[in-house]
Structure formats: C-alpha cells, structure tokens
C-alpha cells in the first residue's frame, strides 16, 4: 500500500459529516483510529444521482448479509460503484441503517450547540441530509445505508443483535471507485450501539490514486455477478 500516491488525507472527528466526489479508480481508505468507530455511508453516481447504492441488489447478487474484502457495492442500475479492495475489519453492516435526532435524544439526552458548542450531540440522518443538500440532493435521495466497522448478528429467529468490539484500533477499509461517485458519510454511532454514552469515534480519511481493476482483480472475479456488474460499469463509459 505504501507505493500508492496519496491525493488527500483528512481527520474526521466522531459525529462528523463529509462528502466527496471520487473519480473512477480513486480509492477511499477509512481508518478506525481508536477502534469501535461507525461510518454511515451512502454512494451515488456522480453524473446521475438517481443511480445509487442499492443494498438489497448488492446483497442478493453476492448472497451475503455482511460486506468485506472482495465484495462490490452495486447501484440500482446494476453498476459496480465501489469495490472493497482491502479490509482489516472483516464485517461491515448493511442492515442497521441510521439513527435520527429522536433516537439520539432517547439514548443520550439532549445537548445543543448553544450550550455545548462542538461537543453537541449530532445524528446520522441530519448529517446525511446536510451533505446531500450540498450536492443538490435531499430527503428522497436518502435510502438504505451501509455502516462500516459495525456488525449485527442475526439469530435463527431473525433477531438482530449488535456485536461490540467488531473493529480494532487502526483497522482500515479501502473502497475503490469503479465509476465516478459521490460518497456521503458520517461518523455517528450505530443506531443499535447499546452504549449509554454519546461517544462517536473519529476516523482518518485518505484518497489514493489506485490503478484500475485488473482482469484478475479479486472483486471483479469474486463471482459471475460481480463480473457482470463491472461489465455494466465499463459499458457506462463505453460511449462517454
């Protein structure tokens, strides 16, 4: 990884919000600095944002309810958007979604900006909406999101349980853009995190100038479904 040119690095505090256009073939590396971070993530086609991360399509194409290295985040138009090319965590949650102001108040109480300044309690839904608004998007564009670094287990009855300690200090995940994408993320706690304390963790963000997916790329070759999603992404650029 050390030979790959770093285009940009940034520290994002817990409870923070961020968005960025990733050119095709740029990778976003996210590092859980302290362990126990959660990154709520949404992805849009930068040229046509109604083409967006579709988690049901992503999961059923790859027969999985967790995401890790080798998996591809797919859009509702069947395109490979982001490939998970490296993962030191091993399990990212596609089920839990994001909390809102009401959930944060129920769990942690109220702490507003007037009294607490930057120590105020922020929530994932509002953070998503703020960043979406900056790109001309809105509430209708906020759909099911991924939670990086978090894990829910599902028992045989279908019950969901949050698994603490899923991500260790320093663990990172790398997401390589397969089309030009808008990435919108925030570092609010997972909505099913049972912790009684408002204690969202910081992450480090890095943009890497990575080479395109080779013909034998792990994410491309994981399954026939992934190869076809890559083919649809490449078709998207065929006449561009």
């Amino acid at each position: 990884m050390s030979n790959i040119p770093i285009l940009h690095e940034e520290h994002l505090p817990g409870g923070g919000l961020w968005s960025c256009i990733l050119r095709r073939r740029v990778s976003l590396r996210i590092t859980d600095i302290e362990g126990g971070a959660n990154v709520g993530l949404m992805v849009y086609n930068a040229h046509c944002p109604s083409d967006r991360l579709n988690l049901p399509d992503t999961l059923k194409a790859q027969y999985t309810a967790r995401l890790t290295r080798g998996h591809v985040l797919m859009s509702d138009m069947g395109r490979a958007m982001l490939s998970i090319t490296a993962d030191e965590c091993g399990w990212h949650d596609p089920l839990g979604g994001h909390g809102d102001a009401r959930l944060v108040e129920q769990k942690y109480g109220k702490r507003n900006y007037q009294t607490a300044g930057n120590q105020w309690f922020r929530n994932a839904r509002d953070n998503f909406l703020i960043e979406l608004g900056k790109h001309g998007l809105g509430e209708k564009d906020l759909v099911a999101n991924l939670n990086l670094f978090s894990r829910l287990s599902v028992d045989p009855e279908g019950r969901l349980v949050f698994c603490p300690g899923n991500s260790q200090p320093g663990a990172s995940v790398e997401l390589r853009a397969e089309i030009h994408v808008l990435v919108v993320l925030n570092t609010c706690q997972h909505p099913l995190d049972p912790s009684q304390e408002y204690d969202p963790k910081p992450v480090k963000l890095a943009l890497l100038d990575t080479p395109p997916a080779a013909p034998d790329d792990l994410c491309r070759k994981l399954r026939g479904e992934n190869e076809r999603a890559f083919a649809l992404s490449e078709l998207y650029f065929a006449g561009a």
Partner: protein
Amino acid sequence: MSTLVYTESPFDAKDAVYDLVLPAGDGWMHEIRKGQHFRIVDIDGNQAADTLFYNANDFRDRYCAQRTIREQAAIYLTTGSRLMSSRGSLLMTIVADTCGRHDTLGGACAAESNQVRYSLDKRWMHSCRDTFLLQVLRWGRGASKADITHNINFFMNVPVTPEGGLSFEDGVSAGGRYVEMRAEMDVVALISNCPQLNNPCNAYNPTPVRLLIWNHV
C-alpha cells in the same frame, strides 16, 4: 428455520369495500385510509408481492425497511410488525398473517439487477422496478424514480444465517395464505406483482394476488 406463527383475520371478503385480482406483472397504486384494513392474498402460493407504502400527504415520508427491522430488532415481518417510515411515522401494522414470515431485505427485481444476477442479455425482460417506475410516473405529482426505495416482499422467504449469509429459500407460503395490515395513517400503497422468470422464488410461475380493503367497523 424459526418458529412461524399464524394469525387469522375476522374479516370476511364479502364485506370488503374493495376487491381486486392483480395479475402477475401488473402494478397497483392506491390510497388506503387510516383505519382501513388491507389484505393481500397469495392465491396460488409462493408469489411475491413487492410492496411500498408512502405517507399519502408527503411521499418523502415513506416505508423504510432499515428502520422497520431496527425498531423491531428482527429482520422478518409477521403479525405485530410495525411498518415504519423514513421519518419515524407508523404507516401500517400487520394484524393477521397466515404465511408466517415475509422478507424486507431482498428488494425488488429490476432489469439491471437481472443482468447482474443472471445474464447481461436479460435486460429486456419484465421486472418489478419497471412496474414501480411506470406506476409512480403515472401517479404524477412529482413522483419519480427517487420515490422507489427498498420494499417488502410479501410471501417471500430470505433467511440470513448467523455467519452473515443470505439465501433465497423455498417459500413458506401456499395457495390462499394472506397477510393483513391496518393503516395507521392515510397511505398510498404501491405493489408490483412480481413477474420474475429467472429464479425459483415463485417456481418460475408468477401468479395473481388478490387485494382487499375493509372499512374498520
């Protein structure tokens, strides 16, 4: 396989104020008023009724699969499940269910996802999301593709394993099984009666569903 609980409804079809048979491959978009009961009947068995709900007064407030499973801390839908909106409103409550389990993780089939899942040459085949799209565009009032979000698959069985695997199992439904909901606010329901011919979820034989509405008395 988890325990399936069956709950019957006291309502009789002859008292329904609305009664329609929706063929496979067709769409349906219809208002259901607060307090009305809405039943979907799997007439021949193992059909998937891909379903979305919206706050009738504001489509930005719409069915949210992640919130629904999060608030009940369980992934399957059955009697007692509260179908929640993106803003946290209660849209519908499932009050009767003779199937026992319904999916809300698998989403709807689409021309493009069929290309990914089966073959690049499947794009021309009919799909739920093409049906959804035509329904919302016909509905008008500014509705568009962005209103089509992650749906419920009534009568479908999509188990998740403790290891995080996802599978599509044989249905737990059968001919005549139904699910019934009470509208907790004025909603608009959007249904695609799934035309899928590429996977065995409906035994490669899409069949009609029956839609009934009662005024609560």
